[in-house]
């Protein structure tokens, strides 16, 4: 009850998590972003433009597809796939980018910057920047520009400049550092389009709201198809943007189990993992208090996953809160399990899903057989896997000429 009161009073926190742990240089600008967001989020003109772009440009609503073959093969619960992979640009990231870019436009900004891991958020940002006629620069760890070359070139084709980041471990966390630094040095014309449910307030809230379109749709779609709510909703979690969007509308429906799938890398108990909620501890980083993989001194760990999109040492503050309240459950999926799911869903359903999403699918493969045939699972396929084909081939020791 005490926590509830705190939450009611303080919009920037989720229990003890969240906040605005950010250099003074950015504090006024964060306030400007929050003010603009609160001003426009219920504004009819803003919502009209948002929904028009979501429906007529990004291809929403996305399908809720009944995976009949997968359901029969696994022999348990009915499996529905929420097909965010069918969105324009091939992932859920576009939902949030359209929303934030519309806020940026209303704030008079002319330049969008973004961090990206797998490249999906970078591609989405570059796409909307092109559509809106805005300048765009993307920050991406050098390790990720190497393993996601296709997405790098896509961003360049869309007119964006891609900065490979060579500091730190050269992955997503370092890209966020670089994007924050760049934003601090150029707030006049620049809006930082944060792609994950992380960072200082109001970013986790904006990402939650703009991604909640996923569960708003899936709820209506499952009621239409089955006449009832699902028993479980499953999504992958790096920072947690598609998961929070997939969970949002079900959080108050206590009978719907919410399951986030983290990247366990080589295993949750190894040091080559990115399973933040299972292995992490409370800390303060990237503008928020949340759970992080870190050592006893508070130095942030260099994490590992085959998936560039889940290769992040922290998690969004709302997920940390949902885990603490045991409202959502978080499980680790290894590289091996995710790659197996990548091949399984391709052969079974004819869907090449992003390696990130395959962490969620891998858990569904374990979960569905343990549930009876009258149960229902919704699994979010957060993105398509074309970008991953080369690295999966490499993982399997197959040499393909890119």
């Amino acid at each position: 009850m005490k926590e509830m009161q705190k939450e009611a009073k303080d919009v920037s926190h989720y229990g003890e998590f969240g906040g605005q742990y950010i250099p003074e240089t950015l504090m006024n600008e964060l306030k400007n972003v929050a003010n603009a967001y609160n001003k426009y989020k219920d504004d009819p003109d803003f919502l009209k433009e948002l929904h028009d772009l979501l429906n007529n440009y990004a291809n929403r609503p996305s399908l809720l597809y009944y995976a009949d073959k997968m359901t029969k093969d696994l022999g348990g619960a009915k499996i529905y796939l929420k097909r965010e992979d069918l969105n324009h640009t091939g992932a859920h990231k576009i939902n949030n980018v359209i929303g934030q870019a519309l806020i940026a436009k209303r704030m008079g900004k002319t330049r969008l910057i973004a961090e990206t891991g797998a490249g999906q958020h970078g591609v989405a940002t570059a796409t909307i920047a092109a559509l809106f006629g805005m300048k765009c620069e993307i920050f991406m760890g050098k390790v990720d520009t190497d393993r996601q070359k296709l997405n790098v070139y896509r961003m360049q084709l869309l007119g964006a400049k891609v900065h490979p980041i060579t500091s730190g471990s050269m992955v997503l966390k370092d890209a966020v550092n670089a994007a924050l630094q760049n934003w601090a040095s150029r707030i006049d014309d620049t809006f930082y389009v944060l792609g994950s449910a992380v960072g200082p307030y109001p970013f986790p809230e904006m990402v939650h709201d703009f991604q909640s379109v996923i569960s708003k749709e899936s709820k209506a779609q499952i009621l239409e198809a089955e006449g009832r709510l699902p028993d479980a909703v499953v999504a992958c979690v790096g920072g947690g943007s598609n998961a929070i969007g997939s969970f949002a509308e079900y959080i108050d429906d206590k009978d719907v189990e919410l399951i986030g799938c983290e990247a366990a890398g080589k295993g949750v108990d190894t040091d080559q993992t990115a399973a933040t909620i299972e292995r992490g501890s409370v800390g303060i980083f990237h503008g928020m208090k949340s759970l992080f993989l870190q050592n006893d001194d508070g130095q942030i760990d260099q994490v590992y996953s085959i998936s560039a999109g889940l290769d992040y040492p922290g998690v969004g503050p709302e997920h940390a809160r949902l885990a603490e309240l045991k409202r959502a459950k978080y499980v680790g999926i290894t590289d091996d399990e995710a790659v197996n799911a990548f091949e399984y869903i391709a052969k079974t359903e004819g869907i090449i899903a992003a390696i990130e999403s395959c962490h969620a699918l891998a858990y569904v493969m374990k979960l569905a057989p343990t549930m009876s045939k009258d149960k229902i699972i919704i699994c979010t396929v957060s993105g398509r896997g074309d970008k991953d084909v080369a690295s999966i081939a490499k993982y399997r020791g197959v040499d393909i000429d890119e």
Partner: protein
Amino acid sequence: MSNLKEVFANKKAFIPFVVADDPDIETTVANVLTLAQNGADIVELGIPFSDPVADGPVIQKADLRAFKADVNTNVVFEIVEKIRQKSSVPIVFLTYLNIPFKYGYDKFCQRCQELDISGLVIPDAPIEEQCELKPYAEKYGVDLIPLIAPTSADRIEKIAQSATGFIYVVSSLGVTGVRDELAIQQLSETIERIKKVTDVPAAIGFGIHSSEQAGKLATIADGIIIGSAVVQIVADGGDVQKNLGEYALSIKDAISVKA
């Protein structure tokens, strides 16, 4: 509250910055002692963080050298213990909030008091987020040094009013396209606004390299903080003690003339 404010009485303070354990414990101890003997009024000691988002490339590299030497929070306290055997120069820590958070705010501030650490500069703890740390800082007499940035605007008065120790005024020097004269005019206005609401000293830092710049800025501020230029001298190697000593004297001389 610490004795930091007194340091600024009747003089312009020179506040150099070094990264703890860059490149090893003994060198850091020697560097701090050399700076203290050659005009440093307060030494700012950096506790390295894995992801120093508010620091530039020179300091990031120094952090990496310190990590190579296996720096951790207890090693930094050990360095201060060694310094304290020979010098009572006022010291403030610069670090990121996760470091004291993980150490435990109570235990961290208590260690600071035991080692006569006067204050903490924490770039990712704006005043809104200091409420958890503040009770412990006050309990052990450690000042939380707030930062005021070129973008602080209407926040200047609010920050200045609650400040103790000194105020770290971030210059826009070194930011692409900002000319020194322009930066100085803006800084001057900022400091005027600070002075209207508090008598806590205001020191300017960020982007200051030369004794000319330091001298000019000393006409409007109570103190000058120099980070990267000092850290670069350590990085360059050679006779570091001699070079640091000469550099410190030249800065101290440049800012003292104006006092």
